[in-house]
């Protein structure tokens, strides 16, 4: 007896088809499993045996050979339990073999015959739709998540028996797809932060142009508070992005089954002890998404940037530029999307009080320099906005108004985003990532603007790259103001977001203007 059905498995962010073939032969009972199964897959036949017995179904008493094709690919995880069990039932004669042909099933089995949920059901449903399949059988627990994918029939089964009933066309207990709970993740409002106008302005610019952002300020000045409010200023994800982000979280097993669609941009804030594999993704045999992929189309907040391991920060460089990360291991190679907005926080010096009006800093210039050296230049080059977040005195805290709400800022951000979409075409590009030549052409700098930039480059010691970064920020500022061309005022504002160079300059020799007279 021979039968075959389809299943699938997650490889990185991609879904690969795996054919499950079951054959019986000979007369002595036994089970062989071939096709590079890993430990979890090899163990599965014990689960399957128990589940079939507890479902009061017969188990074939002949030699069973199970093949997972393609044979060269390493198979991981427990989502082949259900298809293997169905195949064994078919060769045992409990299920008519024709019922299985062309079916696609995934699921893990419990010993009592129930079907357990799996990781990545939404990604699998999306893949199945792309493959032109009409139906996918998944665990009932994952039904709500996978049912969000339109254009494919998703069937949830609660137990092995139920799967058999369904396949043989017997009536199954009606299971309406429960409506997903509204995504009520709401990020805190910007008006809760008092003062810090420059930082809030920087958040607005960062959200509009997807510019990376660095907050420099003493402890307790509100760097984390501000960063947590950034996703609330970002425009909500559109239809495709929602599915993309949700399926990433589904693959990582982080999706809330009650609330399968993530309409808000994600916010991730890993601790600074994170390893580089944790940050960019990877793993022993099959790569898993890291924090940068989990914050795809959202915000990755790295507080205490200089405390992060240097090698962990260096691996950020390539994904920041390209928007994806490719993990190559000896056995597999996987690509993960990683277009995230990096928000970093750091103190102005090791003790944290450099420039504080009330407390004096106890760090020597050399120590401050070493502190800045821990963040590499190439990484800082990719951060367009560097803003100082001063600590407010209690008096200022009382005096300062809360300011605008996240909602009103988000409206301006969405308008600016629309302008970028019109200009760059498909709407996926942002000012921070668009080709530099296209950006320059769009700015249409006049004579006065060019003269200003030369002065600025001279006075601030801007490098060529710093010059480009300023231009990108100025482009976004003009977009926020609803202008097509970039003016001197936009450029003048953009050079204010180079705080780190100024702080760095205060530890080494920096030329201050001495035009005034003592």
């Amino acid at each position, binding site marked *: 007896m021979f039968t075959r059905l389809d299943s699938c498995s997650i490889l990185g962010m991609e879904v690969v088809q795996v054919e499950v073939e079951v054959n019986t032969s000979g007369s002595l009972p036994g089970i062989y499993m071939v096709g590079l199964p890993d430990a979890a897959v090899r163990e599965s036949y014990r689960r399957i045996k128990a589940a079939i017995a507890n479902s009061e179904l017969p188990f074939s008493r002949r030699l069973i050979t199970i093949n997972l094709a393609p044979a060269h690919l390493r198979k991981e995880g427990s989502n082949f339990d259900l298809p293997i069990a169905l195949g064994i039932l078919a060769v045992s004669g409990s299920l008519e073999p024709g019922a299985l042909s062309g079916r696609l099933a995934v699921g893990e089995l419990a010993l009592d015959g129930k079907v357990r949920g799996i990781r990545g059901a939404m990604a699998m449903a999306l893949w199945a739709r792309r493959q032109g399949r009409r139906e996918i059988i998944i665990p009932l627990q994952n039904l709500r998540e996978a049912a969000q994918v339109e254009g494919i029939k998703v069937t949830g089964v609660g137990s092995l028996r139920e799967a058999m009933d369904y396949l043989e066309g017997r009536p199954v207990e009606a299971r309406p797809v429960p409506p997903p709970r509204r995504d009520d993740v709401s990020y805190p409002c910007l008006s809760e932060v008092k003062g810090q*106008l420059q930082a809030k302005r920087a958040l607005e610019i960062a959200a509009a142009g997807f510019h990376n952002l660095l907050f420099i300020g003493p402890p307790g000045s509100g760097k984390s508070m501000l960063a947590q409010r950034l996703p609330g200023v970002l425009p909500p994800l559109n239809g495709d992005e929602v599915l993309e982000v949700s399926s990433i979280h589904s693959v990582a097993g982080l999706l809330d089954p009650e609330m399968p669609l993530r309409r808000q941009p994600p916010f991730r804030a890993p601790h600074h002890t994170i390893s580089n594999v944790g940050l960019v993704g990877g793993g022993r045999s099959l790569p898993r998404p890291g924090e940068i992929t989990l914050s795809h189309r959202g915000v990755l907040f790295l507080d205490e940037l200089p405390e992060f391991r240097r090698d962990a920060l260096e691996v950020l460089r390539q994904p920041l530029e390209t928007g994806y990360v490719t993990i190559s291991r000896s056995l597999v190679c996987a690509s993960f999307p990683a277009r995230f907005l990096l928000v970093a926080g750091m103190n102005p010096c090791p003790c944290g009080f450099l*420039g504080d009006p009330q407390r004096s800093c106890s760090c020597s210039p050399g120590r401050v320099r070493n502190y800045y050296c821990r963040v590499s230049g190439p990484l800082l080059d990719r951060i367009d906005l560097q803003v100082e977040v001063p600590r407010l005195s209690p008096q200022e805290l009382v005096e300062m108004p809360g300011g605008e709400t996240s909602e009103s800022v988000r409206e301006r951000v969405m308008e600016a985003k629309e302008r970028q979409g019109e200009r760059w075409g498909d709407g996926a590009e942002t000012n921070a990532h668009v080709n530099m030549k296209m950006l320059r052409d769009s700015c249409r700098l006049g004579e006065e603007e060019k003269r200003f930039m030369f002065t600025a480059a001279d006075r601030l010691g801007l490098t060529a790259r710093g010059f480009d970064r300023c231009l990108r920020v100025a482009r976004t500022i003009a977009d926020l103001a609803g202008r097509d061309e970039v003016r001197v005022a936009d450029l003048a504002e953009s050079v204010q977001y180079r705080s780190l160079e100024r702080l760095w300059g205060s530890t080494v020799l920096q*030329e201050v203007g001495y035009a005034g*007279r*003592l």
Partner: protein
Amino acid sequence: MQDAYSAALACLPGMSALSLPGLLGMAGGAGELWNILERGGARAAALVGAEKVDEWKGICRRTDPAKALEDLRRRGIRVILPHDEGYPERLRAIYDPPALLFMLGEKVPGESPCVAVVGSRRATAYGKWAAETIGAELARKGVTVVSGAAYGVDGHAHLGCLKAGGFTAAVMGCGVDRVYPAGHAQLLDRIAGRGCILSEYPPGSDPLPWRFPHRNRIIAGLSHAVVVVEASEKSGALITADLALDEGREVMAVPGPVTSTLSRGTNALIQKGAKLVTSVDDICEELPYDFAARGGTAGEVVAGAEFAGGGEMSAGELKTLELLEGGPRSLDWLAVRLGEPPGEMLSRLTAMSFKGWVVEEAGGRYRLLAHPVMRCRQD
């Protein structure tokens, strides 16, 4: 040959720069001291102690002083002895003048008026600005600026002087060929090119902590006056001021806000009677030179100190300047009072800083540097 012997003696490992003048006096000259050490024995032991005699005896026998001096010359390092013409008169007059000076650069400060500008290494933007301005304006009056090439005030005083085309001398606490502090490599190059770098320590000496207070006596000794720009209560700049007082040199201080820890030292100096400096003329008045007779440099060079952005001023800029008169302020503070969006404020502050009116300090505060309206009224 005296200079060769002196230089070779100073270069002996473990030779203390402080005890060298005494040893030379006791031996009766550099050549004599060299011969005694070369011979070794009881006489040498009586002078330098038994533990160093053998080591130095070996070195003295292996070394040819003339060749060592030639090596130094090839590296651009000159040796100046107290009886040389180039040795500054004022330095010879102090209590413990150095036995010799190693020099990198063109010429020694000489007879032109010298002013030391010293202060904290962790200077604020105000201190840096003041140091740079004083350095530049002193240079325009033909005054040599002496300082220690450290971070902060020292570096900016040198820089201001160099930018205005003046002559500046850096006195080091290490060998003249050492780049210390490392961040000032370029500055030291410029000083060596247009001014001079001095040290009593032989080339290659490490910047050891105890060398800096000793070096300060040379800074004070070279100068007619010492101006302290910013100093906390325990700053090394106050040591320089004390040493200058001991030698009867003028001590002056730039006042600062009472809230700033970095101005406590300078404000205390003023309380004790140091002259308060509000303009570079305050410094020049105390120098024993007739500036009017020196080609009238005092008035005309400084007049019309250039504002990079030109003189135009908008109403918003005027209001901002008025608000900043009370001291450095944060953007929040300004924006609340002016009732303007932060974007506009930021671009205006950039324009104002390019005109040289304000400067942004660490901590995100803006400080008023010069008030263009007040200047117009005065001039």
